């Protein structure tokens, strides 16, 4: 396989394969940045992969007071799921348990989509008859009494069917520390791309998986071709110089957002260089037959 080298980093001639998903977004605000982030982080906890969490969610961008509906600091949170029903369920559970409960929070629609998902129009029942409906300038809000005042929540938010989940690339390095440095640089760069999230812990997955396994009931299992400890034991994808591989998994509001995020992430890894970071970049796919979206690494180079 003829491989490309950029800034001393080998780029595999392969591609990332991604899938169509349903996604929504909300804007969470709070009296200050700390508590806006806290509510957002709490509601996006345990939301790394649809395989076991029901959805994938993370903070898309932080918003300054000038960019939120109520003039307070906020976060735009994106949630991805495989189907509309599951997305609706996850949205209500997470906002109900993690945002409604967070001090001083308020919650607004963060997406104008092709359809609406219930938000305040379901959470209002917490008000037990004391909730107040307000329609202001074409937007519908619910005010629910809570112990520090009121939880204000927009009635609905938008749903998009154009979302893409599973954009990815691997950073491969001589040591764990270098792999982590490269992956962190990529995550920081992707954080600047609007409409794209990296749902794994800190944006990084170390347990990239293959579909199925030898044990019954396993949806995903170890991707032994990329496990350095099994190099030589199995048919490995790793050369002798690679001792750690980390994966960046990207979900985006659109195909373009995923591509922009991959480009930004790969650019950051290349700029960090092979001395401090990765010596090789690859990507995960299933042969190109399962996913609707294909991101060839050579098209993602800066």
């Amino acid at each position: 396989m003829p491989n490309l080298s950029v800034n001393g980093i080998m780029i595999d001639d392969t591609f990332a394969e991604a899938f169509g998903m349903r996604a929504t977004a909300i804007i969470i605000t709070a009296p200050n940045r700390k508590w806006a982030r806290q509510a957002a982080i709490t509601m996006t906890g345990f939301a790394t992969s649809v395989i076991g969490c029901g959805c994938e969610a993370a903070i898309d961008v932080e918003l300054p007071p000038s960019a939120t509906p109520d003039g307070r600091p906020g976060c735009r949170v994106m949630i991805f799921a495989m189907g509309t029903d599951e997305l609706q369920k996850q949205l209500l559970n997470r906002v109900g348990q993690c945002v409604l409960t967070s001090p001083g929070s308020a919650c607004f629609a963060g997406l104008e989509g092709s359809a609406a998902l219930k938000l305040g129009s379901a959470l209002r029942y917490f008000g037990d008859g004391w909730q107040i409906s307000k329609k202001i300038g074409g937007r519908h809000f619910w005010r629910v009494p809570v112990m520090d005042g009121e939880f204000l929540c927009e009635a609905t938010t938008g749903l998009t069917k154009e979302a893409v989940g599973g954009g990815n690339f691997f950073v491969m390095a001589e040591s764990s520390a270098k792999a982590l440095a490269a992956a962190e640089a990529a995550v920081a760069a992707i954080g600047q791309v609007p409409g794209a999230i990296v749902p794994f812990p800190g944006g990084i997955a170390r347990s990239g998986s293959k579909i199925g396994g030898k044990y019954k009931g396993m949806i995903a299992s170890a991707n032994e071709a990329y496990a350095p400890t099994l190099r030589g034991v199995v048919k490995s994808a790793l050369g002798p110089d690679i001792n750690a591989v980390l994966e960046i998994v990207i979900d985006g509001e659109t195909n373009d957002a995923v591509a922009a995020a991959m480009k930004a992430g790969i650019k950051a890894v290349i700029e960090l260089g092979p001395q401090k970071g990765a010596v090789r970049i690859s990507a995960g796919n299933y042969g190109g037959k399962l996913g609707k979206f294909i991101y060839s690494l050579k098209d993602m180079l800066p």
Partner: protein
Amino acid sequence: MKALTFTLVAEPPERLDLSPLTAERLAGIERHDIEKIRIGMSKHGSKVGDIFRVAGNDPLNIVFEGGSARLDRVAEGMRGGSVRLVGDAGAQAGRAMRGGKLTIEGDAGPHAGSGMRGGRLEITGNAGDHLGAPLTGELAGMNGGVLIIRGKAGAFAADRMRRGLIAVLKGSGDHAGSRMIAGTLVVAGGTGEMPGYLMRRGSILLDRAPRSLSPSFVECGAPESVFAAIIDRYLITEGILKRPLLGNAPHRYGGDNAVLGLGEVLFPH
């Protein structure tokens, strides 16, 4: 297309019903037929051509040049387009309008915006009693839309209001927001006696503490309110107010507990 303009030639000899002069009812009617529409309400039976000089041809953009307190039911039931009255209006201006924009550059009589369901009605002068309120026998008053009074409003503004927003910028008479069912009434410049009298739900937002409240209102303290921030920003971006009305933690009274008691009167702390 030029704005369809009705220029008042002289003070009308009788009260006039201008409800036929909206985009919906004038669509496809030629100017000479418009001039034959009867608008007089007494034995005079004045026609449009007797009262106004008609020019232009765009019924989606109607202008009345010159006003009078005898011009009743201006733009009644309008659904779209714009109507501008340069002068005063009589009773029931913009009654039951559902859409579009009505601007009255003068004073309006009683029942302005009565039973409105949508659209935007702006009165630069004062409005009479029963602003947005129902007529006798009707169950609900304003049911949607935005109604802005740059001057004063009379008594019983927003009576039995159910939905939408009324903003009165230079003070209102007694019993503003009486019997409100829901919706939002903003009054800057002070209210008369007992705002919110017998209100069931809804919000009355004031720029100062009310002079008097019915004793069946109860104090609810002044917790922080995101709703106050949202409505303050809305009023400013819509050009209704120049400064925030309520601030972050307005004082709140709940009531009227003589009835359902789910309404509120908010004013800055």
